[in-house]
């Protein structure tokens, strides 16, 4: 009889009959880290060398695009300024004569 009881204790599942809320341990660790003022910095190892290369390439492309756009605007503005300057040097009568005169052959 007693042996049976011994076997019962030893054969009983040693698994604990308790559970915890879902994600409890992840949340608990975060809570403690917050209490001690620990902020996880993103590890530099997360960024692989190819990511640095890609970022540099995209940076160069963006800078090239900006430079091209600014340069194009300046060229157009210079041409417009030159035309305005030439016209300002000629009086209205001369201009009228120029437009109505017969082309010289």
């Amino acid at each position: 009889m007693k042996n049976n009881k011994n076997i019962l204790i030893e054969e009983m599942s040693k698994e604990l009959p308790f559970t915890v809320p879902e994600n409890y341990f992840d949340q608990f660790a975060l809570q403690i880290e917050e209490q001690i003022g620990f902020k996880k910095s993103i590890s530099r190892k997360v960024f692989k060398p190819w990511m640095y290369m890609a970022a540099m390439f995209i940076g160069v492309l963006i800078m090239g695009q900006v430079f091209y756009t600014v340069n194009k605007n300046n060229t157009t503005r210079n041409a417009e300024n030159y035309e305005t300057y030439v016209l300002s040097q000629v009086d209205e009568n001369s201009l009228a004569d120029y437009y109505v005169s017969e082309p010289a052959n």
Partner: protein
Amino acid sequence: MNLTEEELVHQFSQPNRRAGAFSVIVRTYQERLYWHIRKMVLSHEDANDVLQNTFMKAWNGLEGFRGDSQVSTWLYRIATNETLTFLTNKRMRSQSSIDEVEEGLLQNLKADNYFNGTEIQLKLQQAILTLPEKQRLVFNMKYFDDMTYEKMEAILGTSVGALKASYHYAVKKIEKYFEEE
């Protein structure tokens, strides 16, 4: 991150790396300590409170930790002391006897949403609750965790011989409980 004990202890002494090293030990030991506490206080809510106190005590004492014992032994000691203090305070607050506190723990366990045991598992918990607190600790650490007596000696400060005797008598008492019930 796999840091050795020596590396961890070294980082404890450096103010700018202390929190990071502590985060490592929280994530490494939280589950083991939680179950160590939970087996004693039974309810999840109480175990959560005691575990928080344990880690905050450890954090406050981190600067003074010199690595004289293993980190796990040190943490288990704090968790054990916090658990026993919690149970003593509970008893004092309710001004009830040990038996009444144990009965209260059992009632809480039955009502706990995070208990999903069978009838036999509940009966085992009832039997364990008939043991004195320190014997209950010894029984749980040996029976459920299969911890070595040497490790238990380092945590509880009780000799291996006394621990073996305590466990032996705990098993006898539980067997007797099953016979009588």
